[in-house]
């Protein structure tokens, strides 16, 4: 874990957006950004690829449709046919509403489950926050520091130029584990304390390939 990163905090979403774009244009590798609300256009500025969760949703829905259609056919025409009002065993037009509801149910639950698993959102999991106020009013950008052959101050200056109120350089794994907010109430009791830095997996870089 000797990779070094730059960690910058912004007060506004548009500053973060422009800084992200500029830093990426200069050829730096953006590790992640943390925002209190969905900043539109940030995924494009970071160069994230489109999520594939839409496909998960589509196939879950398709499964729901096929399964519910088959199940209604099987239970009313194969397993135990019962004469209801003289209708044919496989009276499929009457099966449409339930098949439709099944489609929606499977698609909705499937895509939410897929998102929670893909994002590592698990009940009771300790949050790994880069700064205490990141769920309140801070926008944090984490960028991989320059290798050799780059002016050492270039990245920090660039970030400040776009309005960063704080810039730090540090070892990568510390980035999301310590409270970075000197004005915050009690840095020692930051929620991030709950998770310890020994973890081998790098949470910020999780899903590094930018896919879902």
């Amino acid at each position, binding site marked *: 874990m000797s990779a070094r990163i730059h960690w910058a905090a912004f007060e506004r979403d548009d500053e973060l957006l422009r800084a992200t774009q500029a830093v990426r244009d200069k050829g730096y590798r953006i590790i992640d950004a943390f925002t209190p609300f969905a900043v539109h256009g940030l995924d494009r500025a970071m160069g994230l690829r489109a999520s594939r969760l839409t496909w998960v949703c589509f196939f879950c829905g398709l499964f729901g449709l096929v399964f519910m259609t088959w199940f209604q056919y099987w239970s009313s025409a194969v397993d135990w046919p019962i004469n209801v009002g003289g209708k044919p065993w496989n009276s499929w037009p009457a099966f449409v*509403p339930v098949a439709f509801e099944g489609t929606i149910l499977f698609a909705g639950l499937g895509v939410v489950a897929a998102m929670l698993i893909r994002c590592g959102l*698990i009940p009771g999991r300790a*949050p*790994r*926050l880069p700064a205490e106020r990141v769920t309140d009013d801070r926008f944090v950008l984490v960028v991989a520091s320059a290798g050799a052959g780059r002016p050492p101050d270039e990245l920090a200056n660039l970030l400040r130029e776009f309005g960063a109120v704080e810039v730090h350089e540090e070892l990568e794994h510390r980035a999301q584990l310590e409270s970075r907010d000197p004005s915050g109430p009690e840095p020692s009791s930051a929620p991030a304390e709950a998770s310890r830095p020994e973890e081998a997996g790098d949470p910020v870089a999780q899903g590094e390939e930018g896919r879902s």
Partner: protein
Amino acid sequence: MSDAVSELREPLTARPVSYAEITADIARPLEGKPTRLWYLGIGISGTALLLGMLAIGYTISTGIGTWGLNRTVGWAFDITNFVFWVGIGHAGTLISAVLFLFRQRWRTAVNRSAEAMTIFAVLCAALFPLIHMGRPWLAFWPMPYPNLRGSLWINWRSPLFWDVIAISTYFIISATFWYVGLIPDFATLRDRFRGLKKKVFSFLSLGWNGSARTWQRYEVVYLLLAGLATPLVFSVHTIVSFDFATSVIPGWHTTIFPPYFVAGAIFSGLSMVLTLMLVARKVMRLENYITKGHVGSMCKLIIGMGGIVGLAYATEFFIAWYSGNPYEQFVFMNRALGPFAWAYWIMVSCNVIVPQLFWSGRIRQNLALVFGLSLLINVGMWFERFVIIVTSLHRDFLPSSWASYKPTLIEVVTLIGSFGLFFTLFFLFCRFLPVIAIGEIKGVSQWAQKKPQEVGSGGGGGDGAADSTVNGQTEEANA
């Protein structure tokens, strides 16, 4: 929701506030002691709930002979309440899903409470078929599970069974949608509180840390859920209307029922959202976020939906005449002029005439008046279901079996109890969960809209032209 801010539009919050202030304002009802109004509210609704539980206990232990039903009018108060409550739920989904798809950004102030309302209303609705079964402990029988009776499967061709599946799906998807929307707010609250509250919110927030990758997937899923909930909400009330439309009872057996029921459901739900919005605004002191602009928008939606409902009433009458079917004609004349004419005219005046008052901007700005009118529409929509159900049944094909219907005290108290359940849940929600989507309202606040300059190329997805002179004073106001 990244479109430009128009100078012509009213700001979505009354006074510009910073992100930290938004968090503090919305978290405030969860901290410290609730207001006196809150205690008063939950006191009244809790009492109503207790009374209702007594009535339900009496009904279940004695049987539904405690109700005023008779051989001719087999469905009355309970099914009216069921359709009424399911309908209430629909506006929640309309606001959270349909307005989201239409990029109506004012919805952010009301969508959380509207979604909560959906869930609570569906719970209230589910209560009535359950107690109408008479043996609610066998309520799992309509579920298609492998059983020891053969397996004897349920009859998939029955609209009543479609209803079970539709309402269950609707409840599950609405609750999921609500929870997904709450996750980022749980994270905000987790990082704000200490002690027990922190533990609870920490568990519920699933380790959310606001990473841009998570947000990207979250937004996709939110959009997908909105896309799924939209056809779902139309299908649910369509299927509810099938309970009636697939029968051969004149007054029920009409093809207009699905769109008529959906429009009525959304109409009644909107008026209930409006009622609740005005309550939450006052009780939780959220005047800055739920503005007169929001109330005005709701009123305008109500005019639109009220128009559709009025058109449906007229169409029903026209078709009854045009069809040349004497039974159909009799039922409609009986509705308007028969023994239940009073209920019919309450329905027409509350649902067709009252919404027309909202054309006046002065009335839309008078919140006390809007509150009263929204209550009237709620009453009118309850009577709509009563009229449809009872007047179609009470004079059937043989005059010898004609009967009337009068609710017993037990039925009335059960209805009051369902209101008690609804409002108790709503007041608890106001106290223990964020009533406004913190993450979403930050995205539309004037603080976010004040862009000093254009967002860099490719960065903004249309965010660019947001530089608003109307909001130009924002920065100074907060300095």
